[in-house]
């Protein structure tokens, strides 16, 4: 008897492999006039980025339900005249040659015994470079994309925020460490939504929260305040709306502004070292709209020793010379630099300085210069604000933390170990107490000191840490209660991490007692 035909047939799954040279063939040029170059800048960027990672093969899942896109469909696209599908295509990248035949063989052999599966999974994981979701949106196909990080230049230390994403394809469990990127779709998400969504991927992981989708963030941002008149299609968020969306996601927004270039560099360094991605609110010099990007990492070089009299303790944030940003107009992990530029501020807008400029309105401001993969300039804009979503119990401000770091660095360099003045560096950040204990007790503490810190010192979930070091080797660590608003009376532990002469230890004890704690050795 013939099988009855289904009214609503289930889609067919299909997994296939193509060489990387055919990557862009998977993206169809949309019909009609396109106001963008084709392929879009983001696709070209991703192709160049993957080429740097020596990508060889692309494994394609033709039918993939993406949580972010399906929420976009539910909120917006389901009500369009055009019948948008609710599924996407997912492309996985590998730095090894793989053919459809080999893939079929891997799946088949893995089915026969657990050892074969383990070996195949290990082989695929070694070669795995990440994935991108192709949305069925004409002109805006780049959905959730997570790619392995390109290693920073040799000799430069890199510190990047990343989440371990688990991927399941063909019965294999793969992982990639990165941070999600996507192109704004101009329906549900604008640049600020996308930038915040990227940042919240990291914060949700840190705080065990559910990762919000772009549709959730748009709805949350537009719940109470709609300066543009309507929420959808999404035309851009104000700072106030970004803050509202942060709160809805279970985090506390902090907005920083009015910093010069070095202070901007310092505060971004503190945020990223703490594992908190920073959103930058950017404005053009001249005509144009505001834009938002997410800083996801930095590269730093050692800070050169200073004159011990004028600068007894070095601010290690000064070594930050490169940032990595997710810019939804370009791509993930784009290299960027901070620069000080002169502009004229007139009628609330930045303008280039000309001979006709009023000297009273000319100012030096921090700017972000974003580079393409080939190192040419993509964009340069003034940084108007830094927005960061922090865990709600992190109440201590970055400024107050850094102020105490500056005081401690100077006091220790001049009063405790004067021989090291000019070589002592200080850096400040927030860290989970459990990570701090693990790190500090593993290196440079006596058994008694380790026990005192781990079992006899009450610490907040996140502690603010002032780390003092000499040539990269730890010297002192001062831990502060981050649930307080003032840094000075909130010292929880003062830890000496190196064997020092008894006079230095006595001075360190005196210093610790000024903050109401004993010195832990």
């Amino acid at each position, binding site marked *: 008897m013939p099988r009855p035909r289904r009214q609503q047939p289930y889609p067919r799954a299909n997994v296939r492999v193509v060489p990387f040279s055919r990557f862009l063939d998977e993206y169809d040029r949309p019909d009609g006039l396109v106001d963008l170059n084709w392929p879009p800048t983001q696709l070209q960027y991703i192709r160049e980025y993957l080429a740097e990672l020596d990508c060889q093969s692309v494994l394609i899942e033709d039918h993939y339900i993406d949580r972010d896109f399906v929420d976009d469909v539910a909120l917006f696209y389901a009500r369009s005249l055009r019948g948008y599908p609710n599924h996407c295509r997912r492309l996985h990248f590998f730095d090894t040659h793989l053919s459809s035949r080999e893939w079929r063989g891997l799946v088949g052999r893995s089915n026969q015994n657990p050892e074969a599966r383990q070996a195949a999974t290990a082989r695929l994981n070694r070669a795995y470079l990440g994935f991108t979701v192709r949305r069925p949106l004409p002109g805006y196909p780049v959905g959730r994309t997570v790619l392995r990080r390109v290693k920073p230049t040799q000799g430069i230390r890199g510190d990047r925020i990343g989440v371990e994403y688990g991927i399941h394809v063909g019965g294999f469990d793969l992982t990639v460490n990165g941070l999600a990127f996507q192109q704004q779709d101009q329906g549900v998400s604008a640049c600020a939504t996308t930038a915040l969504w990227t940042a919240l991927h990291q914060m949700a992981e840190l705080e065990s929260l559910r990762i919000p989708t772009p549709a959730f963030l748009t709805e949350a941002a537009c719940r109470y305040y709609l300066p543009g008149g309507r929420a959808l299609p999404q035309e*851009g968020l*104000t*700072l106030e709306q970004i803050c509202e969306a942060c709160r809805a996601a279970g985090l506390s927004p902090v907005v920083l502004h009015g910093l010069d270039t070095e202070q901007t560099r310092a505060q971004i360094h503190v945020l990223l070292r703490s594992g908190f991605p920073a959103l930058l609110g*950017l404005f053009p010099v001249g005509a144009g709209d505001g834009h938002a990007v997410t800083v996801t990492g930095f590269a730093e070089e050692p800070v050169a020793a200073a004159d011990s009299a004028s600068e007894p303790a070095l601010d290690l944030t000064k070594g930050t010379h490169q940032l990595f940003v997710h810019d939804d107009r370009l791509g993930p992990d784009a290299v960027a630099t901070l620069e000080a530029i002169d502009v004229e501020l007139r009628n609330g807008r930045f303008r280039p300085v000309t001979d006709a400029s009023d000297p009273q309105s000319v100012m030096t401001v921090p700017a972000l210069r974003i580079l393409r993969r080939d190192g040419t300039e993509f964009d340069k804009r003034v940084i108007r*604000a830094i927005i960061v979503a922090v865990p709600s119990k992190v109440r201590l401000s970055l*400024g107050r933390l850094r102020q105490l770091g500056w005081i401690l660095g*100077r006091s220790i360099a001049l009063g405790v170990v004067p021989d090291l003045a000019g070589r002592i560096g200080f850096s400040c950040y927030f860290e989970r107490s459990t990570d701090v204990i693990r790190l500090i007790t593993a290196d440079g503490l006596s058994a008694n000191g380790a026990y005192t810190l781990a079992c006899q010192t009450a610490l907040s979930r996140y502690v603010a840490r002032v780390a003092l070091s000499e040539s990269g080797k730890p010297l002192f660590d001062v831990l502060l209660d981050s649930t307080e608003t003032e840094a000075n009376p909130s010292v929880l532990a003062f830890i000496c991490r190196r064997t020092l002469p008894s006079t230095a230890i006595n001075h360190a004890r005196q210093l610790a007692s*000024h903050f*109401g704690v004993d010195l832990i050795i």
Partner: protein
Amino acid sequence: MAPGRRTVAKPSDSRRKPAQAPKGKTRITKILEQAAAESERVMRSELDSERLPAGLLTLQFKKR
């Protein structure tokens, strides 16, 4: 508040005696006080960076 004085005690092991700030001004006290005074000048704008002027919150980010 004078350095070394807590207004509210931190939770800690009750057997531990809280550290006492040394009486009188030691060399380290003077260095600390001088550094604290100087830090107000050096770090002023970073300390003020969370105080937002009116109008900043209405800035819109929309670039395509």
